């Protein structure tokens, strides 16, 4: 696993990106398929929408735990759950 390399150079960004993407889905504490990981200069930015603030915190916690050396920032929103104010007519 690239993240466990000891003493070597930092793993290539693309592999880190791939691993984070899979962790977001496969880690039972996260289980999100709707989070996008993009590389912006030296930082990986996570964005997307989740169902609760707790889940957003959990994502950042798990990613930081697994990749302590990767600078991560996030722009994850909590999806609104209000009743709609408009309808769509489909004649």
């Amino acid at each position, binding site marked *: 696993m690239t993240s466990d390399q000891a003493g070597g150079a930092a793993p290539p960004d693309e592999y880190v990106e791939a691993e984070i993407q899979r962790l977001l889905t496969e880690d*039972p504490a996260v*289980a999100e*398929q*709707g989070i*996008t990981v993009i590389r912006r200069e030296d930082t990986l930015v996570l964005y*997307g*929408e989740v*169902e*609760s603030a*707790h*889940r957003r915190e959990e994502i950042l916690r798990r990613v930081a735990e697994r990749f302590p050396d990767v600078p991560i920032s996030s722009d994850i929103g909590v*999806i*609104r*759950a*209000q*009743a*709609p*104010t*408009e*309808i*769509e*007519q*489909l*004649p």
Partner: protein
Amino acid sequence: MVIRIAAVGDVHLDEDVVGRFRPALEELPECADVLLLAGDLTRHGTEAEARCVAQEFGGLAVPVVTVLGNHDHQCDQVPQVVKVLEDAGITVLEGDGVVLDCAGGRLGIAGVKGFGGGFAGRCASDFGEPEMKSFVRTTNESAERLGAALRSLDCDMLVALTHYSPVPDTLVGEPLEIYPFLGSYQLGQAIDSAPTALAVHGHAHAGTERGTTPGGVRVRNVAHPVIKQAYSVFHVGDQLDTDQVSPIGGSGSQRSWS
């Protein structure tokens, strides 16, 4: 004849979300004849999470009809999940359908989870390794069951409910590379094999709301992260019955009911 359909998918419930949808759901009887859930009701498909779904979506004053999503399969507890939902009065469809008597007529809903495979010209084929053939056969069988269910219903209006998408239109916003994991054209073909009025799906969290099958059936992606509200409401009906359409009338008009 107008039937009012509320729909949402991908609510991914667990304890941390219970109660968030309920205030909006309590308003349903005023604005909809039925609530459709387009799968991914839970995060991991556990019985405990299904109880959260039952608590949030059970005991509503309108009928609730659902299909399961891929997340609802994660822990291999599908029979337990289905039982918890059915005990809460939620109708779970998988290759079958239900007909509801609504004020505007008999609404027939046929549902399957569906599966991936991709879209015409860019899709997986039933060829090669057993794993590949089994993947594509899963898609084919699911679509065949959806088509058969749609064609079997005796009703005034027909709606198809899936988790995976029947068209690429509603995936716009997702990376092109993952389209084959988000839906399959065979589902669209099944929908077009019957006089379907509307097809509703979820699964594509970064997709877009509106699309159309090659046969002209309107498709709506109602994944919660896409619609960003508790549910969407569609008034589906015959344009001729203008008396029953909302006072504003006309396609694409908007009206607040609160």
